[in-house]
């Protein structure tokens, strides 16, 4: 009985390690969950750094 449970645990562990990669745009962010390179955290959401200044309602950068 131990072997099957071991196999199931192994499978689950393997699956947990297999997280599907998600594009960062719009992902929630804060100091503990920073955005990846090329993105900046703006109003708790990752947005591209090279977004044009006049895009949307965002204020132009300093």
């Amino acid at each position, binding site marked *: 009985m131990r072997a099957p449970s071991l196999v199931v645990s192994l499978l689950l562990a393997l*699956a947990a390690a*297999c*997280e*599907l990669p*998600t594009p960062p745009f*719009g992902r929630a962010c804060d100091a503990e969950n920073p955005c990846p390179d090329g993105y900046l955290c703006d109003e708790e*959401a990752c947005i591209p750094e090279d*977004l044009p200044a006049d*895009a949307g309602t965002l204020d132009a950068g300093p």
Partner: protein
Amino acid sequence: MRRWLEPKAPDARYNALVLVPLVTVLGVLAPSGAPAPRPGDGPPDLVAKAYAAAEELRYCDAVPLFLALHERAPQAKHLYRAAEVAYAARDHRMALDLYRSVLAAYPTFEKARSVAGKIKQLEQLIARGDLGEACAEPARSCGDWVVVPGEQCDDGNLEDGDGCDGNCTLSACGNGVRTGGEACDDGNLLDGDGCDGNCTPSTCGNGIAAPPEECDDGNQVDGDGCDRGCVRSGCGNGVLGVDEQCDDGNAKNGDGCDRNCTRSRCGNGALQSGEECDDGNALDGDGCDAGCRSTRCGNGVVTAGERCDDGDLEDGDGCDSNCTPTGCGNGIVTAGEDGACEGGGPDEGVVLLGGGLTFAGAALTVSSLVLAGFGAVPALDHAAAAAAIEEAEASAGDDLDAALEDARAAQAAASDANRRWQSFGAPLVVAAAASLVVGVALGATGIWLWTENVAPVAAVGDPNDEERIP
């Protein structure tokens, strides 16, 4: 029966009344005064004889002669002359009968008036009781022109072969007189009594089949239906005929010439000692093989379904008792082989196992694919969410707020898909992959068992792969 009397010497009155008129009637009698025969008068010899009898006053003798003449040449004058000589013989009753016959047969006869007068005269004589002198019936013999009972004919002579033979029978086979063309004539038409019905001696070849002859076609030619010795043409009659190799006159086989008239040998169609069969040919595999042994394994002849045939049913001698070469896999356990080598045929257990494994492998493979499909659903959902995020990012330059709103929704969907993928999607796919491997392995094992155990046995006996081992 009327008696015939010898004629008496006529007296003067008779001569005056009868003979002179008779002579007048007959004319000049033969030979000095016989009328010259005319065509249709009848046989000249008979004419001469009749007239000679009358001339010699042998009237009673002349009567039957004229009657015989009338019989052969029916003319009024012949019958009339018969009556006249009867009258001359003074046989009143016979004369009356004959005269009446003349008038009855020839009413227009030129002397009818005279005949009528004679009839009247004779009737008066007889009425008075004067019958005259009846002629005595003469002794008759063959050759006297008069046909009497017992004679078929009488041509006035005893010559044979002239139509009426010397025994007064018609010239023909079976009349007892050998005449032209007859080799014999025993007086009958019976066959086999020495002289057959065709007047040839009772011998083979005379055209008459008489016992003990089976046939007789009148010749001694063989093969024409009736052979020499008067036996029917055919095998076994002792006469070599067309299409016969031999003919020893019996129906025994194996004595050199068999009952079908072929020389005793295997393949002649006649079964003889030492042959199991004989179908008349040397073809193998048709039930009776060359060598006249029945088609079967062990008869020494390789036929369909046999890869070898060494003439025995011994195993391990190169060709085993199932007519396959000695060796592992031929179904016969021989020296040096173990039971595993020879199942003696496809092992049912192995066959079942192979089939079961193949089926289980296929089922597992299919179910694994289905499982993998279910497991892949979260991954597909995540891929769709990721695509939506990238699309929103691409439109961020136009309207960042809207793009962010879309991106957040897609991020939530991606997060949900990721959670489902990690909780059951990925494990399902991994398990399905493992199951797929196991299923394929099982199926392959099953197929291998089948091909290794069933196919080789089925291949034994393939006539296309014959290996002739004598």
